[in-house]
């Protein structure tokens, strides 16, 4: 869906559902997922439909992912950090896992 204009910025290593992904310093989680070609970051709690980041500006909440164990974080507002563990969310999430 998206590609980088140039490879600026140092590499940051994160994992998504256990798989290593290379992100860039300055990326947010949502952008790193898009750049890595991951086409959805969660399924909805109501019908289980796949969703991907929609607005990239904190409005839509479709970018919700689990970041380092904390569920339903807005991926488009959280900058990546080396070693960060991202999990995509399937349906209802957070507690009772």
């Amino acid at each position, binding site marked *: 869906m998206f590609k980088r204009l140039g490879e600026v910025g140092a590499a940051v290593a994160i994992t998504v559902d256990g798989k290593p992904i290379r992100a860039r310093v300055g990326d947010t989680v949502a952008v790193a997922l898009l750049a890595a070609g991951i086409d959805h970051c969660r399924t909805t*709690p*109501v019908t289980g439909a796949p969703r991907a980041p929609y607005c990239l500006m904190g409005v839509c909440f479709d970018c919700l992912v689990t970041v380092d*164990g*904390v*569920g*339903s974080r807005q991926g488009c507002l959280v900058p990546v950090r080396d070693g960060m563990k991202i999990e995509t969310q399937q*349906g*209802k*999430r*957070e*507690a*009772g*896992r």
Partner: protein
Amino acid sequence: MRTADVVVIGGGIHGCSTALHLALRGLKPILVEKDYAGRHASGVNAGGVRQLARDLAEIPLSISSMDLWEKIEDLVGDDCGFTNNGTVLVAENDEELASFRARVDDLRMRGYTHEELIGRDELKRLVPAVSDHCPGGVVSRRDGAADPFRTTQAFRKRAIERGAEVIEGVTVTGLARVGDVWRVETSAGPIEAPKVVNAAGAWADRIAAMLGEPVPLTVVAPMLMVTSRLPAFIDPVVILRGRKLSFKQLDNGTVVIGGGHLAVPYRDRNETVIDWTKLAISARTVWELFPAMRIATIVRAWAGIEAYMPDGIPVVGPSATSEGVYHQFGFSTHGFQLGPGTGAMMAELVATGATNVPIDGLGIERFGTLKPG
């Protein structure tokens, strides 16, 4: 001049239930509501339908209500989202459990069996997610929860279908005795009726003041917060005694957290201001009781405006000063469950002058020593 058999003031669950039951008795009620039905406490409460831990004076009304809740769909044509997975009062330590035992024993002696003492194992079976430090509790198995706004709307709708008139966006501004009827002044003109029911919730003291009847009512605004949808992990409603908490997971997965911490109410503006420092206390209590909830997200907090009486129980029964006027308010943050039964009882009282369900101890005369004004 508009006329009716009864003017019901207030379109909460109580006003709507009374209007329905009056209509079912063949009377013609007009219900007057200043905003819209269910705008206040009745539409925004925690939806707890509980007999557990009620004041002795309320128990008969609560039990008669429960009978109606269990066939709510027959009564109002909507299941009101009612589920009955019980309410559990969790003891956080042995002293608490001992005091619960004393209460349950006392109820048994009076012939009430709805509260049942449970130990650690049964508690864990009913509420697996509860923290291990809790030694037991009390369960009331018929209890449950319903969708408050939907319930109030269902009563309103059925009342209209059965012949009640419901006028919304209209405020009652005065009450005067004219001959042998009451002339109810409203922002949309007067209505005359021989009987009036004051179910005006947090504003009921203003109605009583129109009769010169003083009422020591405080306006409070209990707060609630709700999480986003979580996987199902708890069936019954959970409440605490020592600390303020009520906790329940709805069918849609969201968890409603309440328990009586108060917001700042502004009843003339229909507004409340959330007190986050108090909600933080609720959050800590949940944190300790249900460790799995720590990473749940809170998506909304709100408060409803409600009347609180000095003794924490409602005012139900005839006015002490004005013939033909009946009070039904002051439910002191736990009146949702009482709505169906109290409406039925009130309709009986208004229509026949007597009631089969005892309401001793709930009359306004208990505040009799109060000076007017």
